[in-house]
C-alpha cells in the first residue's frame, strides 16, 4: 500500500512537488463535495491538465492503492483492460482492482481519461483503414454494414464510437461488471442500443458461432494481458472474414517501456498499481508480426503512439518503442500475403486492386 511503500529520494521530491501543485485542488474539492449535495447544481468539469477530485465516490481499497492517482494526473499511462483466454487464468486480485474501478469507465476526466483520449487516435485509425476496403460509404454512417468484434471491450469505450459510425459491434469482456457497466451506458441511447451487443465471455467461446463473420476484430490494449498470444491471435483470425481487418493497440517490449511503463508508473509515481503489468508479457511489433503472418494475416500498418501526460492527448509517432497500433488483413486464400510495410497512409490503390481481383479468384476456385 502507499504508506508502506519505500520511495526513493527522487520519488519523494517528485511527490513533494506534486503535492504543492495539488494544493489548489483541495479547495476545489471542498467546493465539489458541498455542491454535490445540491442535486441540481452543476459540478465543474475540468480539462486533464487541471487536477480533479472525486472525494464523493471513494472506495477504501481504491484510496489505498490509488492515493496519488487522482492528485497526480501529470503522468498518466494507458490503463489496461484485463483479458485472458480462459477463466482459470484470471487473477482474482486483479479482478478486484478492476471491479473497484468499474464505475469509473465513463468518467472522461477520471482514471480512464487516457483511454478516452486514445479514441482520438484509434477510432480514425480503424475507420480510415476500413473505409479503404469499400468503394463508397454512406455519409453520416461510414461504417454501416460492417460487423466488428471488440475483444476486451471493458466499459465499451471503443465500442460506442464505432457503433455511432454505423457499425454493428459485438463487445466481449471476461469481467462481468464491465459488461454490466457497458450495457447500462449504452441503454440510454436508442441508436447505440440496437447497434451494439455486449457479452461476458472469452474469445474462444465466441469462435464457433462467429467463425468467418466479422469484417473487423479490434483488440485494443488487450494482447499484453493475454496468457497465450498465439492461440489468441489464431482465434482472432478464425473469427475474421477473408479480407477482414484486425486492429491491435498495445505496448512494445523495450527498455523504454520498462523504464516508463513499469518503473516510473508503478513504482515511483504510483499511477498504476504494482504488479498490474508484467514486462515479459509486452509484445514487440516484430513478434506480433511474425505470429500474425504465420496465421495468414498480413500486416499493413504499424504506427507508434505517444501520450503527452501534460496535455492529456495522444499523438501519432514514428517511434514504436512505447505504444503502437497495428493493422493486419486476413488473406483471402489464394493471395500471397502482402509483405509488411511501415506505411502511415496505406496504398489505397494496391488494396483496391487486391480486392478487385478477389472475387475473380474466388470464382475460379469454385469452378
Amino acid at each position, binding site marked *: 500500500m502507499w504508506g508502506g511503500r519505500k520511495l526513493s529520494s527522487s520519488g519523494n521530491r517528485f511527490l513533494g512537488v506534486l503535492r504543492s501543485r495539488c494544493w489548489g485542488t483541495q479547495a476545489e474539492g471542498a467546493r465539489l463535495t*458541498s455542491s454535490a449535495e445540491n442535486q*441540481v*447544481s*452543476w*459540478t465543474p*468539469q475540468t480539462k486533464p491538465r487541471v487536477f480533479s477530485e472525486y472525494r464523493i465516490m471513494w472506495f477504501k481499497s481504491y484510496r489505498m492503492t490509488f492515493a496519488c492517482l487522482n492528485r497526480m494526473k501529470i503522468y498518466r499511462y494507458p490503463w489496461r483492460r484485463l483479458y485472458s483466454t480462459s477463466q482459470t487464468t484470471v487473477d482474482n486480485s486483479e479482478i478486484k482492482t478492476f471491479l473497484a474501478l468499474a464505475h469509473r469507465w465513463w468518467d472522461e476526466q477520471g482514471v480512464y481519461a487516457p483511454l478516452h483520449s486514445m479514441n482520438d487516435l484509434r477510432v*480514425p485509425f480503424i475507420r480510415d483503414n476500413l473505409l479503404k476496403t469499400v468503394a463508397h460509404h454512406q455519409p*453520416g454512417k461510414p461504417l454501416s454494414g460492417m460487423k466488428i468484434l471488440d475483444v476486451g471491450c471493458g466499459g465499451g469505450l471503443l465500442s460506442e464510437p464505432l*457503433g455511432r459510425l454505423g457499425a454493428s459491434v459485438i463487445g466481449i469482456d471476461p469481467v462481468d461488471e464491465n459488461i454490466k457497466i457497458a450495457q447500462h451506458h449504452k441503454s440510454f441511447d*436508442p441508436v447505440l442500443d440496437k447497434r451494439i451487443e455486449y457479452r461476458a465471455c472469452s474469445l474462444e467461446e465466441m469462435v464457433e458461432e462467429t467463425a468467418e463473420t466479422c469484417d473487423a476484430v479490434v483488440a485494443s490494449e488487450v494482447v499484453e494481458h493475454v496468457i497465450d498470444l498465439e492461440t489468441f491471435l489464431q482465434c482472432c483470425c478464425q473469427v475474421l472474414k477473408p479480407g477482414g481487418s484486425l486492429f491491435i493497440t498495445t505496448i512494445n517490449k523495450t527498455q523504454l517501456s520498462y523504464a516508463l511503463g513499469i518503473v516510473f508508473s508503478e513504482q515511483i509515481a504510483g499511477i498504476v498499481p504494482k504488479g498490474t503489468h508484467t514486462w515479459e508479457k509486452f509484445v514487440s511489433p516484430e513478434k506480433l508480426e511474425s505470429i500474425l503472418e504465420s496465421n495468414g494475416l498480413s500486416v499493413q500498418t504499424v504506427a507508434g503512439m505517444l501520450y503527452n501526460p501534460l496535455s492529456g492527448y495522444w499523438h501519432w509517432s514514428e517511434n514504436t518503442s512505447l505504444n503502437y497500433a497495428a493493422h493486419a488483413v486476413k488473406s483471402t486464400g489464394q493471395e500471397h500475403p502482402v509483405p509488411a510495410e511501415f506505411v502511415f497512409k496505406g496504398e489505397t490503390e494496391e488494396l483496391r486492386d487486391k480486392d478487385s481481383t478477389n472475387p475473380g479468384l474466388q470464382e475460379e476456385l469454385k469452378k
Partner: protein
Amino acid sequence: MAGRLAVSRWRAAPSAAGRGPLLSCRRWSGAKADTVYDVVVSGGGLVGAAMACALGYDIHFHDKKILLLEAGPKKVWEKLPETYSNRVSSISPGSATLLSSFGAWDHICNMRYRAFRRMQVWDACSEALIMFDKDNLDDMGYIVENDVIMCALTKQLEAVSDRVTVLYRSKAVSYTWPYPFTMADSSPWVHITLGDGSTLQTKLLIGADGHNSGVRQAAGIKNVSWNYDQSAVVATLHLSEATENNVAWQRFLPSGPIALLPLSDTLSSLVWSTSHEHAAELVGMDEEKFVDTINSAFWSDANHTDFIDSASSVLQSVVGFLRPTKVSARQLPPSVARVDARSRVLFPLGLGHAAEYVRPRLALIGDAAHRVHPLAGQGVNMGFGDVSSLVHHLSAAAFNGKDLGSMSHLTGYETDRQRHNTALLAATDLLKRFYSTSAAPLVLLRTWGLQATNAVSPLKEQIMAFASK
C-alpha cells in the same frame, strides 16, 4: 477591461436564489423516452437558425437528429415586401461564406442585398477620418435586412426537414442537467421541458436565445454585463437623389455614433446610437425635423474647435509629406430627403459576455454568449463566427464517433471563439468610451490616432481582416 471579460474558469456553485424553476426539477430516473435528439438548438433567431441549418447540411450529420426550438411563429412570405425593413445587418465576407455553405446566400441574392465597397468613419470634433476599402474595390461587406436572412434560412431548413425538425411557438421553460459522471439510473442527457408540458432529451443543447438567454441562466453561467446609457434608433431613409450608394458612413458624435448604411440606390438605413432621452425625442419628432437633424448630424462642424483643427492639420501635412497618396479627403454622405413612415424604432444597448461558453452537453452561441455595441457592425458576424467554429468542431467529432456533448471538442470551440470575441468586445467598448467625450485632450489623442491609423495601410488591412472573419 479585457481582463474582466477574459475567461476565468471560476465556477462557484451557483446560489440557489438564481435557480428559479430548476429547484423543483428532479433528476430523471430510468424512464427512457422514444427519441434522443443529437442536438437541440434553443432559439430560432438569425444565429440559432443558421446553426441548425449548418448542422443539417453537414455531411457527417446525415444520420443525426437535430431540433430547433423557436418561441415565435413561422415567418413566411409569399413574395418579397416592397418596403424595406428597418432592422438590417452588415454581413462580413466570412459570414457570407458560411451562409453560402448551406445554400442560404443564393436565396438572399435572389431577394435583395447591397454590397458596399468603402467605409468612411470620421469624428465630429475634428477633421480626422479613416477610410476603409479593399485595394481592388472588392466588396467589403453586405447590408442585408434581417428578415431577408431569416427567410433564406427558413427556406433552407424546410429543404432539409428530414434531418432538422423545427418546432415553432415552442418555448423551453426548464432544463435538467445530467450529473457529471454516470450514476445508476440517472439519464446522461439534457432534458428540456416545453411550455406545453412535453419533454425532450438531447445529447447536446446549444443556447442561441439572445442576450437574456434562458439557457445560460438555467445553467448558472456567470455573465459579465452592463447597460450602456444609450439606445439605438433605426429607420429607413430615402435619399435626395439616386446615387451609386456603395459606401457605408459612420460619424462619431459626442452623444454617440450615427451610421448610414446603403440599401439601394435611393434608400439607406440609419443606425443612430444616442442617449435614451435624445433617442426618444428622435423617434417622437416630426419627419421634417428628423430629416434635418440627421443631415446636420452628418454635415455640421459645430463641434470643431480651432485648437483641434490646427493640431490635426499639422499631422495631416506631416502624413501628406511622408505618404502623399494616403491623404484622404473627407467626403460627405448623401443627403436625406424623407424617412419611411413607421420605420423609426429604438432599442436599448448594452454589453455582455458569458464567462463560459460551454459546459458538458451545453454550448452558447450568438448573443447568448456575447452582446456588443452596434458601432462596429459585428454583433451578428460574431454569432455567425461562433456557428462556423462550432459546426467545424462538431463535424469532426461526429466523424470520429464521439459523444457530441463531450467537453473535449466543446472546449476547443470555446477557446477559439473566446479569443476572438473577447478582443473584439474589448475594442468596441473602448472605442465607444473613447468617442463619447468632447474633452480636448482625448479628442486630440483620438484625432491623431485616427489619422495615423488611416495612414498606415497594413494596420488598416489587419483591422479589416479581423472584422471580416
